[in-house]
């Protein structure tokens, strides 16, 4: 059982790190190049990339959602510590678990709405306005990122040792 848990934890960690690395080496540089190209083309050559705004927006959507599980794993979400620091270890454990369950609920909701989005976008063949790319893969990406978030929460919920933060 511990080895299964360890493997699961490693798998989740690998997936989350890969998503974060995709942001670092692919999406953020692509976003920069796209926005910059548009500025240069518009000002220097009096032409513009008609789809740049919309595609930049889709890049941004991917960046935001792909890094959510990484932020969660690094405990980067903004919290208020004022009462927590005075809690006993028992209450710290209880509130930490409660907080994770709340995050899990949000992750499930995100998966649910994203999957419904995928079905709708697939059914109605929704594409971007300025470029004929389908939108459902982006909604699917939201569902996958949210699933990663849920998987990471399970890792944190069932972690053996509780670190007193």
């Amino acid at each position, binding site marked *: 059982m511990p080895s299964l848990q360890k493997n699961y934890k490693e798998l989740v960690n690998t997936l989350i790190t890969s998503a974060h690395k995709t942001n*670092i080496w692919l999406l953020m540089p692509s976003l920069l190049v796209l*926005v910059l190209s548009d500025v240069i083309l518009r000002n220097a050559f009096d032409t513009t990339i008609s789809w740049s*705004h919309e595609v930049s927006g*889709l890049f*941004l959507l991917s960046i935001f959602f792909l890094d959510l599980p990484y932020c969660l794993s690094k405990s980067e979400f*903004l919290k*208020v510590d004022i009462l927590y620091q005075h809690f006993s270890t028992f209450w710290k454990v209880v*509130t930490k678990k409660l907080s994770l369950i709340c*995050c899990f609920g*949000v992750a499930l909701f995100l998966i649910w709405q994203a999957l419904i989005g995928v079905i709708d976008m697939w059914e109605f063949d929704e594409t971007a306005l300025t470029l004929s790319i389908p939108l459902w893969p982006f909604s699917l990406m939201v569902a996958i990122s949210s699933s990663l978030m849920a998987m990471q929460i399970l890792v944190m919920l069932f972690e053996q040792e509780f670190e007193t933060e």
Partner: protein
Amino acid sequence: MSDQNTGLFALLVMLLMILIRVPIAISMLITGVAGNIYLQGVEASLVQFQLLSWEIATNFILIALPLFIWMGQLGYSSGIGKDLYNCFHKWFGHRPGGLAISSVVSTASFGAITGSSVATVMTMGKMLMPEMKRYRYASSLSSGSLASAGVLAILIPPSVPLVFYGVWTESSIGDLFIAGVIPGLLLTLMFSLFIWIYCHFKPSLGPPGEKYPFQEKLASLLNLLPALCVMILVLGSIYGGIATTSEAAAVGVAGMLLVALAKKRLNRHALKESISESSKLSSNIFLLLLGGGVFSRFLVQTDLTEIWIQSISDLGLSLYVVIAALVLMYLLLGAIIDTFGMIILTLPFVFPLITSMGIDRVWFGIFIVLMIELSLITPPIGLNVIVMKQVVPDVPLLDIYKGTFPFVLICLFMVLLLVIFPELALWLPSKIH
């Protein structure tokens, strides 16, 4: 349960969740989504959530957020802070308190590039505190002035909290940036003037340093030119009509990359760290915007915001009383919540109120950032003070707070000036238009 009671109940649950350390964005999302489902049913809430999350995440204006953070991170890793200090120290270091004045000016300038108070205090503190110790500066003055100068980072453009505020309130980010210039420069000037006067009467607190020949001063100034050019390019492209704020952020990143490469201060690790930090922070801020968006839409359904505005109007309070109450509220909130938390938690209530009272949204953006600045240097949390304590563990926390106290008063004086003379924030945007 009536809609208003549902709203109040959800608000209480949200506050309770925040107090037991559920992330702020998650607390807002849960109560907002649950409230919306209760009032409108599952299907309508799902559609609303889908539209909202898509609308926020693909908003072109928000591109400024990861790109400005990236630009700041590049400035941080390319050692521009050291160049800034070298320059200002050579120009002002020989005056009483000159080293502290140089620190304030270089910290404010470095902060303007990075846009992050904490990174600024950490970097400049590590570099400047040993220098001030060497020149026998009083520890409260040196640590207090540095921790306080860090707050200028978020007022002088480009500023990440101002982008956040602009997106949330649908205000022009260009106007917000330019509106922060005069208050930011004025505060830097007031901080420096205070140190100079203080050290003039008590020279032992900040003895004068050595004098440098003019050629050396000039050379140090030339060394700053590349970074200065990037800043001029960023702001110039916005106000020259060449680029939007988001595009200007991309120009800034490219410029900062070139500067760091030219100075041979960029390696793979630094590049990776800069992108990683910006991607992480942006994602975190996005979740806050989403949570805030869902919760405020729920509040609109309950009519709670309208009732709140009506009740305040019925009290017949003058504008100054309302602003004084807001100052007090932000000072108290600043003791427990950080920058973005303060903005996102209060705006759903405060923003409709201030717009109904006819207060300019750009002016209010500067006001709110000033209040956040104060919270960074006031007890019990004062994030900048705590960071400074990590930099100088041998200086007692109380000494640092004592050192920041005069600067807190100066910031409050700035708030007062801003209330009496709103033109301090609004004159430049009006000229640009």
